[in-house]
C-alpha cells in the first residue's frame, strides 16, 4: 500500500507507474455522452478541469488524434487493451 496516491477508499490493486499525464482538460469518449459527459463535468469542473466529450465517431470528428494525445486515436486506445 502506498499513501502517496490520495485514494479513499483504498482499492483492491494499485500499480503505480513512472510519469504523469497533463490533465487540465479532458475529452470523455463514451457510448452515452449526454449522460457521461455531464457526470464527468460534475466531477471534474469544480477542480478547474475543462470537460468535453462525445461518442467514438464524434471524437474523431472533433479532431482526434491530437498531438498532445501522443498520436493515439480512440480506437487505438481500445486496441491497446489486453
Amino acid at each position, binding site marked *: *500500500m*502506498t*499513501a502517496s*496516491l*490520495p*485514494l*479513499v*477508499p*483504498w*482499492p*483492491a*490493486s*494499485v*500499480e*503505480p*507507474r*513512472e*510519469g*504523469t*499525464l*497533463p*490533465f*487540465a*482538460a*479532458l*475529452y*470523455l*469518449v*463514451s*457510448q452515452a455522452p449526454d*449522460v*457521461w459527459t455531464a*457526470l*464527468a463535468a*460534475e*466531477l*471534474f469542473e*469544480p*477542480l*478547474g*478541469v*475543462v470537460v*468535453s*466529450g462525445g461518442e467514438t465517431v464524434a*471524437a474523431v470528428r472533433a479532431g*482526434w488524434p*491530437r498531438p*498532445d*494525445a*501522443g*498520436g*493515439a486515436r*480512440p480506437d*487505438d*486506445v*481500445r486496441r*491497446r*487493451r489486453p
Partner: protein
Amino acid sequence: MVLVQTTFDGAARDQESFTLEVHEHGVTLTAARPAGLLHALRTLRQLVTAEHTVPFVVVRDTPRYAWRGLSLDVVRHWHGPETIRRVIDLLGMYKLRVLHLHLTDDQGWRLQIPSHPELTERSGGTQVGGRVPAGERGYLTVEEFRELQEYAAARFIDVVPEIDLPGHTNAATYACPELVPGGEATAPYHGTEVGFSRLWADNPATVPWIRDVLADVAATTSGRFVHVGGDEAPALDTAEYTRLVETACDAVRAHGKTPVAWQEAAVTAVEPGTLLQFWDPRADPEPLLRAAAAGARFVMSPASHAYLDMKYDAAHPLGLEWIGYVEVRDSYDWDPGDAIPGLPASAVEGVSAALWTETLATPEHLFAMLLPRLPALAEVAWTSRRSREWESFRTRLAGQARLWDAEGWAWHPSPQVQWPDR
C-alpha cells in the same frame, strides 16, 4: 486535452468492479456496468493534482460489501431536498451506494402520504425546538421524493425510506388522533428524549394505518428496500411490539419490497433476507445470532464507530456523547466482521454510517460531522480488512481536503490528521 476512453467489459466480476489505467496516451476506464464506470471516474478525480496532472497508474478495484451507506435523520432538524442532494454528491465521492432517510419520528413527519395527508399537514412543520425555518415546508412531497430518488439513481445510489414504528411515533399520534386510545391526539413534541411514544396494537385503527402508510411508501419507492424502524420502543411489551413490527414487515413484503429494521426487531419472527441494522453494541447479541440463523442479514452501524452525530471530543460544539466520543480513528479502526461476537461473516450485508440531527440544524453542521469521518467508514465498507491501515489512511485522508474545499463543504480539522495548509 486528454482523451478519457470508457469501455464496458462483460467479463468483469460484478456491477461495481472497474479498471482504471492512466498512461502516456490518456486514460482508459473499463467496467462491466455503469456503476463501475462511475466509480472509475471518481477514482480518477481523486488522482488529479492541484497542478492538473494525473500519475500513471493501473487501478483494479471491487468493493468488499454491497451495502455501503449513510442513515440520515431529516426529522429532528429538517434538511430539505437541496441539502440531501449535496449529501448524495458526498456519498458518491466515496462510492457509497445507499442513502437511508429517517423520515418520521416524534418531532416531525417528512414524507407526504397520499392516504393520510394529515401526517404532513400537521406534523410536517415541526422539529426540535419548535417549527422548521420560515419559508420551509418541512417535508418531501411524493414528487420531490421521486425526484430525489432519480437524482440518486443517476449516481447509482439507492434511497431507502424509513417509517419508524411502533415507537418514535409522536408525530403520527399528534396528526392522527384515531391512533390514540380514546381518540385524543398527543401534543406536538419539540424535545430530544426517546422511548416515550408508541402505537397500540389493540387499537382497531392501528394495523390499517400501518398498511395504508407502508403501501403508499412502497408505491413511491423505486428501490428494493423499505425501513420500518422498530427501535427504542420500551413502552410496548414484547408481544405487542412483535405483532406491530411483523405487521409492518408483512406490509412491506406484500408490496414487493424487502424490509429493513433496527436490531431490536431480532426478537420478532424474522424472515430470510430481512435486513437488521445493528446500532447498539451494549445489547445482548443472542437475539441477533438467532435472527441470523433464521436468515436475517446485518447492516453494521455500531454507534461507537458509525454514529457520526457523536462529538469528536469533549470540546466539540456539536453532537451528542451518550456512547462516548467518536474521533476519525474510532470510525476507521474496527471491522464489520467483528461487530457482533459470534455472527457468521456471511451474514454481514454491509456498513452504514448514521447521522442523527438533534443538534444539527444547518447543512454546515451536517457536513462538519460527516467530514472527515464518513470517508473512514466508506473505506471500512469498501476495502478488505488486510488492505486497511490507519497510518496510510490518515495520510490519504489529508489529501481529500482539497476536494471538500472545491465543493464548498464544511469539515472538521481533526487533530488526528496532518491537514495541508488552507
